[in-house]
């Protein structure tokens, strides 16, 4: 099927305002008759629930955490982009749009990206009005910094905790609506199925994680704001609870999954120490503003960093990309680190690490300035590694961080299933094959505050409120299906823990579907994953019961979905015979090792439809049409 992204016609800069005029509205007094389910309380979910509640809709909000304030958006450190041009350095909406399209390696939808750039300025205004304590300069104006993939300074920040502050801002607005009674919040509640009635999304089935009770909720529309899926790699910078379950189960109910192979590897994470490791910790790439990345020139150089003289160091990012230097985009920096380590020039006990050195910046600016800028990151680094980043270079290595792929949505953020809207990292729409730093926060809040309130009305205005009730047989069936899976997980009583299976899957994913992929490695993954999956259903051991709080059971359900989803991800990567952004196929590279796109054959969104667990998914294509930018080679040299 050829999918239509439903981009409005007309000039790029006028699409969104024209579309807003064309969309239908719901009368203020009718809004309360509509119920909207919002799953997830991160930036997208909290801002959407708050805004929809404020407009007068009835909102049911769900999160697996014990409080909506703990969603993983909270961990974003560096900042949020906006085209304010406060720096007077020639920034503009168009430039932010262009940087984002180019950063995404020309694999995103022009109209969505332009809209994102357009609303970026409103987001900053909104957050300041809500009390987000952004950094200020001495005159009281907002401060800003530069970030990877851009040559202007457009990133606003709140120390190293921008995500936390933005999320708490959205959580405050959300809390206000809880108090007002327009948003009902269900914490420690996990979505385990999407309910589709007559082809439209009309509800969800959930498990109360404290009592184990499985029940369903009906609504007029469902918004999934359920984040990304990179925990399929076992080790990532995501929180332990981040999972693909909500999205994957929507996929199994007919929603298309777009570009799952576009995964982002973040260059500045703390290297792995051993088998026991449960997660990887990221340090904001804003560190690359002042830190210089290097490895020894010689292979296997085991000297301490300060014993290696300047002329025996290779500042490879500055050497390879003189105009962007240490601020080269994430995918490029990550791959360059992997190359250096694969050549045997990696540092640290495992050899999988490169130096991030602040010595020059400390000499130039003083330790106090560096401490003011990144103090919390240096502290975090020391806690984990027991090393002082002010005295010796930090060691960093790339780690899985973000999913550009997600459920397919049109310009209205609506999936191919009417009534199902997908926001934030959970959708695929704005970042193409690679996301630029400080753009995730922008997208999450943009979708929730400024897009969904308009576009959901256009759907609701065309549908009668309360069309589907929980008495509908589809709801009953959904609950039974979920109960059945839960019982099955508890009854296998095999010999391996959930964690062992997850780790095994993660290793297959990282080795074969990681930073560098090949036809051979992908075929290996596609063969191995179903084998692990088969063993999972025969040899898993989950202790405890389904009737109370059981973290093993929760994890088992999530890993069961990862075991199917990992295969989909690998299949998408195998289908895409080109390299672009975060998707690097070793067969498709330039003579200098840069990614080689194939615009003639792959300038499309790959949206996969579910056909059965052991069946190949169906490929639907949304052709990407570029009317405003030339598809250049993405050079940062």
């Amino acid at each position, binding site marked *: 099927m050829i999918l239509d992204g439903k981009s409005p016609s007309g000039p790029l800069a006028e699409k969104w305002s024209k579309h807003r005029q064309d969309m239908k509205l719901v009368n203020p007094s009718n809004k309360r008759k509509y119920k909207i389910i919002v799953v997830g309380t991160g930036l997208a979910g909290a801002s959407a629930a708050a805004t929809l509640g404020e407009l007068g809709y009835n909102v049911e909000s769900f999160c697996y*955490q014990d409080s909506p304030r703990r969603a*993983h958006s909270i961990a974003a450190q560096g900042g949020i982009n906006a085209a*304010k041009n406060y720096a007077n350095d020639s920034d503009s909406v168009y430039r932010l749009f262009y940087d984002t399209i180019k950063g995404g390696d020309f694999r995103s939808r022009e109209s969505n990206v332009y809209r994102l750039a357009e609303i970026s300025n409103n987001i900053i*205004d909104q957050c*300041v009005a*809500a009390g987000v*304590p952004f950094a200020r300069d001495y005159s*009281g104006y907002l401060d800003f910094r530069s970030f990877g993939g851009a040559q202007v300074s457009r990133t606003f920040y709140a120390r190293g905790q921008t995500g936390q502050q933005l999320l708490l801002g959205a959580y405050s607005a959300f809390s206000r609506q809880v*108090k007002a009674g327009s948003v009902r919040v269900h914490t420690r509640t996990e979505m385990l199925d999407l309910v589709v009635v007559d082809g439209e999304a009309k509800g969800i089935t959930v498990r109360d994680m404290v009592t184990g009770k499985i029940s369903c909720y009906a609504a007029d529309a469902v918004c999934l704001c359920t984040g990304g899926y990179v925990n399929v790699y076992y080790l990532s910078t995501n929180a332990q*609870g981040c999972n693909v379950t909500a999205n994957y189960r929507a996929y199994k109910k007919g929603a298309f999954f777009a570009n799952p192979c576009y995964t982002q590897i973040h260059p500045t994470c703390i290297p792995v120490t051993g088998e026991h490791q449960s997660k990887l910790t990221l340090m904001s790439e804003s560190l690359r503003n002042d830190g210089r990345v290097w490895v020894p020139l010689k292979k296997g150089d085991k000297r301490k960093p300060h014993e290696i003289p300047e002329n025996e160091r290779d500042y490879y990012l500055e050497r390879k990309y003189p105009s962007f230097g240490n601020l080269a985009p994430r995918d490029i920096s990550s791959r360059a680190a992997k190359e250096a380590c694969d050549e045997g020039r990696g540092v640290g006990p495992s050899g999988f690490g490169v130096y991030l050195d602040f010595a020059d910046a400390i000499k130039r600016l003083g330790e106090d300035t560096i401490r003011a800028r990144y103090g919390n990151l240096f502290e975090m680094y020391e806690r984990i590694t027991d090393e002082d980043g002010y005295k010796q270079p930090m060691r960093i290595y790339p780690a899985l961080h973000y999913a550009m792929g997600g459920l397919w949505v049109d310009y209205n953020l609506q999936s191919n299933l009417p009534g199902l809207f997908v926001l934030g990292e959970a959708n695929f729409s704005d970042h193409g094959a690679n996301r630029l730093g400080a753009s995730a926060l922008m997208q999450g809040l943009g979708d929730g505050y400024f897009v969904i309130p308009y576009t959901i009305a256009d759907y609701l205005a065309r549908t009668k409120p309360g069309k589907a009730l929980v008495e509908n047989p589809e709801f009953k069936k959904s609950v039974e299906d979920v109960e059945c899976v839960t019982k099955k997980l508890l009854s296998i009583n095999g010999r391996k823990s959930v964690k062992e299976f997850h780790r095994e899957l993660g290793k297959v994913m990282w080795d074969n579907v990681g930073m560098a992929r090949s036809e051979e490695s992908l075929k290996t993954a596609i063969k191995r994953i179903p084998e692990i999956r088969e063993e999972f259903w025969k040899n898993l051991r989950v202790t405890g019961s389904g009737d109370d709080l059981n973290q093993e059971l929760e994890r088992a359900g999530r890993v069961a979905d990862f075991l199917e989803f990992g295969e989909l991800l690998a299949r998408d990567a195998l289908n895409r015979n080109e390299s672009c952004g975060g998707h690097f196929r070793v067969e498709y590279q330039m003579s200098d090792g840069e990614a080689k796109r194939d615009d003639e054959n792959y300038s499309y969104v790959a949206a996969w439809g579910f056909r059965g667990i052991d069946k190949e998914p169906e490929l639907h294509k949304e052709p990407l049409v570029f009317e405003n930018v030339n598809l250049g080679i993405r050079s940062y040299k």
Partner: protein
Amino acid sequence: MDLTLFVWRQKSPKNPGKLQEYKAKNISPDMSFLEMLDEVNEELVMEGKETIVFDHDCREGICGTCSQVINGIPHGGQERTTVCQLHMRKFKDGDTIYIEPWRAKAFPIVKDLIVDRSALDRIIQAGGYMSNHTGGAADANAILIPKPAAETAMDAAECIGCGACVAACPNGSAMLFTAAKVTQLAMLPQGQIEAAQRVCVMTEAMLKEGFGNCTNHYECQAVCPKGIKVSFIAKLNREFIKAQLPL
């Protein structure tokens, strides 16, 4: 290294709980405290036993989910560190470690080391926000904010809502938590408009939830993983008194 753990196990709020002994063997000093517990849980699964449940999520010290009292100290006693960021190199081979949940009247136990902290959410719901609508905000630079005010607001805003302050306080008080939000918003010109109303409703909500009052023990500041200072409690009191005065 090998350790002996005494962990609080409690099936539900209705069942009585007790400290149970476990052995943690071959623990690497590079492990985080929670990774050490993961290892113990893996053993329990292999023995066919129910795992120790504990709250955790981001494991990088920012979500505020993890909540354990280790050897009597919420978050374990390393300065400005959450449990998830505490590493085993801070312990010695042969150590005995006592692990308990947050204990406070306003935080009922859910299971094992997990407590219900929704009372903190309800304090925010009472008034920890600006009552502005989405859309229509003035340009972000329309109202200037002096750097020192913005810095103080940010110092307060760093609170992660973990509740260690409550667990450490002999009165089970949530004054530090409430003060942090009141201070953050009161420092900003945008937040001053509702400051009087806010401090009253938040304080009222705090008392209604069963949190105690502050009697200046400063235990909250000592265990706060984000270094939130008790001077904010003074600010809260000042805002509260200001709100009682006639205009």
